[in-house]
């Protein structure tokens, strides 16, 4: 589904990713762990298509296509969802208006009929209830005045509504208390299926207590230095990132 081959990137001429390779198939959950500055968030940015991340070497294949040829919006419409570490606030633009435009942009791309306001609201209300988010969310500005935890829950809400094929969640657990973490994990677990893939980018093992990964990768100095199963994360929790190069 997603095949990252020997990716090198730089931001403002500083090298961040340094030969990262990773292959992800449908139904898999991959956790990417690593110390601060190892390039975890840069990987999310590269997959989202953020302009300031220049890919200097390597390639990324997504469903057989060159991902780097797709624009930011095309990636989303083709089923890639990136949940950001710091989602932006957009005062004045309400969540439901934003999300409906987003869903319909994807539907239009797939040559499907637009979702009506009534159908949208029905789906949004059902989803929001499952995620234990107050209904008033829908009429509030996108992330406007949201707490850190609310912003992260909003990312999961958007992910569920957009129903992507692959979700890349960048530090979705950071800043969450244990109750919020459980809600977020529940949302991700409900999203999990044989046809979907998930990349969890996280600093701590605790998220993986709630969302079980199939693979755990350790990122250091812009490349994967070790891969394993869930036990790798548990080991890291005890020993720390030894060979982090910082």
């Amino acid at each position, binding site marked *: 589904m997603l095949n990252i081959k020997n990716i090198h990137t730089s931001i403002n001429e500083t090298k961040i990713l340094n030969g990262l390779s990773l292959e992800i198939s449908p139904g898999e959950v991959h956790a990417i762990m690593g110390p601060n500055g190892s390039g975890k968030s840069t990987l999310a940015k590269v997959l989202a*298509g953020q302009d300031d991340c220049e890919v200097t070497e390597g390639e990324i294949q997504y469903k057989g296509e060159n991902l780097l040829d797709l624009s930011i919006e095309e990636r989303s419409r083709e089923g890639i969802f990136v949940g950001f570490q710091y*989602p932006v606030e*957009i005062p004045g633009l309400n969540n439901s208006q934003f999300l409906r*435009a987003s869903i319909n942009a994807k539907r239009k791309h797939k040559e499907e009929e637009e979702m009506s306001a009534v159908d949208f609201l029905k789906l949004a209300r059902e989803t929001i209830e499952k995620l234990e988010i107050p209904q008033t969310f829908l009429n509030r500005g996108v992330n406007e005045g949201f707490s850190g935890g609310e912003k992260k829950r909003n990312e999961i809400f958007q992910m569920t509504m957009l129903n992507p094929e692959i979700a890349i969640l960048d530090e979705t657990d950071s800043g969450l208390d244990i109750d919020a973490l459980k809600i977020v994990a529940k949302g991700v677990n409900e999203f999990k299926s044989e046809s979907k893939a998930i990349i969890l980018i996280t600093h701590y093992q605790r998220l993986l207590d709630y969302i079980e990964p199939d693979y755990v990768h350790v990122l250091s100095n812009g490349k994967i230095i070790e891969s394993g199963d869930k036990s790798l994360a548990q080991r890291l929790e005890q020993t720390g990132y030894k060979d982090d190069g910082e």
Partner: protein
Amino acid sequence: MPVSLDLNNLDRKILNNDQAIYPELGQIALKKLKELGIPDKKHEHWRYTDISEPIQLLEKSLSPNNQKSSKKKTDRNHNPGNIDAYWLNISDIDFGKNKIIEIEGYSVQIKCLNEEQAIKELKINDPLGCLNALLTQKIIKITIPEDSVIEAPIGISCVEPTYSHKYCSNFRFIIDIKKNSKVSFISFYESNSNESHFSNIVMQINLAKNTETEYLKIQNLSETHNLIDRSIIDLGTDSQINYTTVDIGSKLSRTDVEVNLNNEKSSAVINGVYLCEKNQHIDNHIWSNHISQSTSSTQNFYGIIGEKGHCVFNGKALIKENALETEANQYNHNILLDDSASVDTKPELEIYNDSVKCSHGCTIGQLDEDAIFYMKSRGIDSKTAKSMLISAFVKNILSKINIETSREYLDELISSKLERL
């Protein structure tokens, strides 16, 4: 271009022949105008707005060939933008006559003032107001009786040019709201031709004790039209006004709002939205004069400026010695969509006592690139994302308009303007 108007010539043209509708008033206005002079860029309040074209149009309108040359009646059933309101038809009210219209069971009086009444009622304190009084074709007074609570808005439609002179029209409206009343108004400016035109309009709005007024101005004139629109608002005890100006069209649009908080516990919210495109010039000058104690005023203006557009905002709160416990706030926020777009903004406070709570500020910036990226990452294309951000920005003001029937029209008007920006 220097602004010049031969005032002695005006004297001869207007007042020494039978064309003046209000000759005595004209003499008073001309005397005042000679003291004040026609403003040009040397005047602080006209520094950024060149009125040479409006003045030329005014002069052209005085040529004998143009006097009363395009007298047309407005459409009796004119309903701008299909906005549900009691639209007043001022064209059939003749000089010195009045009529009563029943609105929701209240008798609203509409009168075209005669000279004696006009001299008594008119406030003339600035050069353009003098020109308006000197050249006015009609002074319409609308009186809302005491204890009226009128749900539906009352609409005043200024479709230009109509029954006015070619090139230039000068109207003055006086809205008198008697005590304990609650009412809303929409003043609507649009063009019915693409001829060059200058409208010089004055609105005097008097709020008596314990009244509440919602006032919405929608300006969607053609790109050949110049508008100078001055509102003079006098507030009684415990009265409040929520005034919003929405400027979309015109070549040049200047809005002056002078709010006099003359009485205790009076409050004014003066808001504005302007969407300015190629070669347009939109200027808002707002004065809040706090004269009495426990008064409050808020000025909040949001602007979007496209390629080669130029906007001006000057908001001032003057707080006099006796205006204790005053609250005054002024904000102006601008988004420039192009390197050639520009704005001159100046929020000002002039305070003469210590018991005040004031704030002011302005911002000039571009659309938030991070927000655009975020929206794109959710599948929304760049153009739609920008348009949604602009709509969200102006919604800060539009959401504060309490005239439900105008909402749909304003949304459409703004969307169609955004297409051009």
